[in-house]
């Protein structure tokens, strides 16, 4: 009797772990879609507020590293350039299958200048490359989803 009970307990533990993995996998998929969407959205904007309407030929014309972020009066989703996403945080709720299963997510972004040789290190001076790091968290998710993308400025004359 005891042995069978232990066996069944162990099976139930396995079922629970299995459910947890599947649910976490489903939520991670949603988080991945949110992170991808934010990167797509950011990469569709102008490289810099100062390159939105004119061409730049020197990095000294770019927004200083300390000034990356929204300009006065700008709020999401009305951003006009890539670095407006710096320190931006957005809340989303995704239908996880039925009205009782709505899953909240929080997406935070960080944007900084990088050098191609050291793409993980933030540069204190402007370069032609900006990196966005998008982090998605949720109370329903045991882990954090992080995606990164480097946007480079170039133009043809």
């Amino acid at each position, binding site marked *: 009797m005891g042995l*069978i009970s232990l066996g*069944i307990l162990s099976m*139930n533990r396995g079922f629970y772990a299995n459910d947890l993995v599947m649910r976490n*996998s489903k939520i991670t*998929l949603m988080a991945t879609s949110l992170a991808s969407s934010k990167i797509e959205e950011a990469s569709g904007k102008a490289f810099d507020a100062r390159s939105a309407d004119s061409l730049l030929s020197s990095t000294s014309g770019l927004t200083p590293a300390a000034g990356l972020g929204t300009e006065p009066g700008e709020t999401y989703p009305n951003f006009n350039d890539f670095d407006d996403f710096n320190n931006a945080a957005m809340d989303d709720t995704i239908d996880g*299958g039925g009205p009782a299963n709505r899953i909240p997510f929080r997406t935070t972004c960080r944007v900084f200048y990088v050098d191609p040789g050291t793409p993980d290190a933030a540069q204190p001076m402007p370069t032609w490359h900006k990196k966005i790091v998008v982090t998605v968290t949720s109370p329903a998710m045991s882990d954090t989803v992080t995606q990164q993308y480097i946007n480079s400025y170039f133009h043809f004359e």
Partner: protein
Amino acid sequence: MGNITALDIATSAVLVVFLLFMVYNSDARLNETMVTTGNELIVQEHLVNLVRIIEKDLRRIGYCSDQTKIPDPSQTIVSANRNGITFLTDVDNDGEIDTLQYSIGSPSSLSSTPNPRDMLFFRSVRGSASQGYSIGLTKFEFKFLNSKGDSLAFPITDPGKIVSMELKVALESTHPYDELYSYAAWRTLRLKARNLRER
């Protein structure tokens, strides 16, 4: 002595009933887990594969490996509606412009699955008759945006105004377990095709 034996037998019978009940429950749970896990896995795999194909195709709107044949960006999207899009691209990278169409069927036309909400998914290249894919698609909704980021109202009469798009995709398992369908969603795939950007 006789009473003790009868009590033993009764106790044993109760325990056996308990054991049988536990085994029966475990068997039912095992069955449920196997089916739902399989369904979840299939739905998630279908979703990831579908999104991968769509992302690749939509990113290449207006692309042609032969640069002399790159279509006019304002003519690249042939037509667009809430549940489908037709656009010009070079699907097989052979330097020839192809027409690629995404569309869905109606839930009622897919009677071969028990799920009342799923629809066939069609991907038609060069106008060829596409076989519909039954992958449990329950939502496939586009939202198209102009250069200012404003969404365009349906019906879209001038697809040339489209600069970016959002897509919501949801899949459910085609077969239920205990009347419950497994569910997976990909929210707002926001795409800005490079070749639609500058015009």
